[in-house]
């Protein structure tokens, strides 16, 4: 066990404020944790406490954050990220739970891989929930052994990154997944419309001479899969929503009472395609960064509750892969360590959501979507906690990232919401 990973046998978090994302207002309180459980919440004198005392004054003590869209790269690309390094980055970002995408090598399309991931992560303070592939080999042709995968611990199905082109395959996948009451996480992108594109299609792609991906590429498939959701009743979760058209489609699906949910990434809220003027491959994402009108629509979607959750789409790529001409670079950035800071700066700081609303979208909603139990902030409950200072400023230095990769556009930027550490599974991980 490393220096900053300790047992939560008997500890006192002193001087902080307890924040229940469901209740709202922070409340000044100390917390005793005994054998991994919340033992006492109240004002406790550290002098008379005979366990380990952590001074966390000014910090918020809240339920553990959850990131439902993470790429861990193991098995297959351990040079970019391992389950261990990904969990370290997750803990540094304040996450006690993450769901990892199946686009590994081999892909997570069999119960062996699900078990492998869970086993590798079992001693980490951050719990890892594998998302299994929707189709065998993520080929979009035959559906996976979903019953077996769910039994092994898969919490959702997705061919993330390789959207299912064949509508009948998607329909069958939804019908079949319906039996297990697990969501399909849907990377919505019409592969024909998006083919060859490297950025958002629009004025900026014309300016830069880069092939574009139109908003319609996302919206067409969201529309299709909402219709299939109506047909099958399966739970559909739209990954990394990026377009105003997409927000409108999800809004209407929700109004119609369909089991459709959606997430948005910090980067689709923080950047626009106008930031690509220097061909920075750390701003090359899929879906691509869109325009400021799209960002406004996403913010409106957050306010209205059309968008349920924040998710990082943490996508490690090696330096060699990203340090190339724009066309040749892969899509994606790392994001576990910066998500809370970016959301507090961009969304809470600018008044789009209150801090409690933002925390709900990182704590409650993702677990609800995946059908996972939601931890509680009360005595006797297992301590699954994130402790962070909401206003303390910190600067993200990619060279100090816990991730094995460095592909981030946030290097050198200053954010609020400094993570102190997490407590989970009887362990304390101090950042």
């Amino acid at each position: 066990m490393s220096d900053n990973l300790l047992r939560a046998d008997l500890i006192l978090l002193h001087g902080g404020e307890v924040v229940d994302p469901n209740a709202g207002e922070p409340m000044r309180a100390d917390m005793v944790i005994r054998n991994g459980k919340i033992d006492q919440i109240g004002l406790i004198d550290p002098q008379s406490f005979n366990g380990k005392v952590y001074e966390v004054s000014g910090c918020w003590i809240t339920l553990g954050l959850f990131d439902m869209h993470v790429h861990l790269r193991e098995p297959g690309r351990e040079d970019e990220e391992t389950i261990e390094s990904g969990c370290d980055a997750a803990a540094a970002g304040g996450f006690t739970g993450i769901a990892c995408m199946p686009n590994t090598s081999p892909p997570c399309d069999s119960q062996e891989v699900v078990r492998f991931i869970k086993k590798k992560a079992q001693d980490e303070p951050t719990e890892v929930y594998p998302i299994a592939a929707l189709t065998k080999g993520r080929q979009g042709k035959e559906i996976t052994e979903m019953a077996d995968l769910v039994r092994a611990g898969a919490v959702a199905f997705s061919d993330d990154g390789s959207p299912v082109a064949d509508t009948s395959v998607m329909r069958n996948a939804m019908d079949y997944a319906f039996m297990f009451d697990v969501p399909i996480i849907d990377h919505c992108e019409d592969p024909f419309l998006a083919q060859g594109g490297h950025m958002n299609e629009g004025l900026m792609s014309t300016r830069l001479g880069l092939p574009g991906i139109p908003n319609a590429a996302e919206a067409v498939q969201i529309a299709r899969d909402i219709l299939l959701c109506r047909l099958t009743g399966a739970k559909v979760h739209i990954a990394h929503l990026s377009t105003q058209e997409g927000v409108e489609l999800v809004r209407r699906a929700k109004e119609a009472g369909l089991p459709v949910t959606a997430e948005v990434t910090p980067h689709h809220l923080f950047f626009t395609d106008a930031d690509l003027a220097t061909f920075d491959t750390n701003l090359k994402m899929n879906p691509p960064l869109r325009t400021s009108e799209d960002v406004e629509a996403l913010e409106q979607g957050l306010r209205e509750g059309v968008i349920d959750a924040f998710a990082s789409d943490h996508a490690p790529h090696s330096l060699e892969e990203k340090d190339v001409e724009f066309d040749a670079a892969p899509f994606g950035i790392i994001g576990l360590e910066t998500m809370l800071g970016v959301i507090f700066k961009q969304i809470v700081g600018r008044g789009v959501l209150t801090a409690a609303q933002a925390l709900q979208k990182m704590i409650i909603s993702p677990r609800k979507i995946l059908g996972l139990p939601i931890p509680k902030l009360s005595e006797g409950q297992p301590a699954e906690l994130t402790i962070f200072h909401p206003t303390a400023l910190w600067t993200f230095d990619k060279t100090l990232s816990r991730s094995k990769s460095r592909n981030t556009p946030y290097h050198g930027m200053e954010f609020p919401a400094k993570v102190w550490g997490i407590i989970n599974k009887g362990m304390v991980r101090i950042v």
Partner: protein
Amino acid sequence: MGLTSRHLLGLEGVPAKDITLILDTAENLKSILDRPIPKVPTLRGITVVNLFFENSTRTRISFELAEKRLSADTINFSAAGSSVKKGETLKDTVRNIEAMKIDMIVVRHSAAGVPYFLTQCTDAVIINAGDGRHEHPTQALLDMMTLREKWGTLKGKKVAIIGDIRHSRVAGSNIRGLKTMGAEVMVCGPRTLIPPGIKEFGVEVTYRLDEAIEWADALNVLRIQLERQEKGLFPSIREYHNEYGITRERIARAKKELIIMHPGPINRGVELDADVADSDASIILDQVTNGVAVRMAVLVLLSGFDTSQESLR
């Protein structure tokens, strides 16, 4: 008086005074090309690498000639015979070449942004000879030089660019340069070959060739690539020629004298009929001649040679 930037990556953001300086210098240098010994020592001791990752005949020859006329040492690198095929990254290739002590790189690449990328990995002066569908600044400069020779000025003149605007770096640089110099620009082609947001560049858009012909003082006719038809962007060469091919009959309907340009190589009988290409209205071969002069001017100005202090002759 020199240029604002130490590289020529494109014409976006290049001020009118810089474009004017390049065109004036090119006109000045052009006379050298007619001498019995068409060579000056201006760039003696300067090493220029022509880094071509994409097939090119005329642009590469034009640059090479310009370099030789200026007495630069030149090295040609083309991707086919290079280590690029062996899996070396672009950055490594460029750093290796730079380590051999070179001063300037003329680069062509199929990916947009490569010239900018090179400025991040080497200290050499970078000249863009065409990057993806982004920019091809020396082509636009030679087009503007040729038009300015003809008209004396570009201000208020109307240039229609015809054809595959969407995939054309020639259009990309011409639109920027011409707008900066005060000319009016119209683009004309099938909707599938017009890029989104193009109107925000301050250009007119039409899908009807006759409208462009009626409006324009000059037509810059772009090469149409067969692969666009294979991708379904237009139905057939036959229909393209019917709708957008420049024929004698069509330009006869123009109300004023029209100038015909083409960046080459021409698909005769597709985007441009042979009798128009070879007519008096055509300034296509002047473009080619001016291409060498413009590239000489760019090389001289970016080499740090002070044209106001030292004679070029």
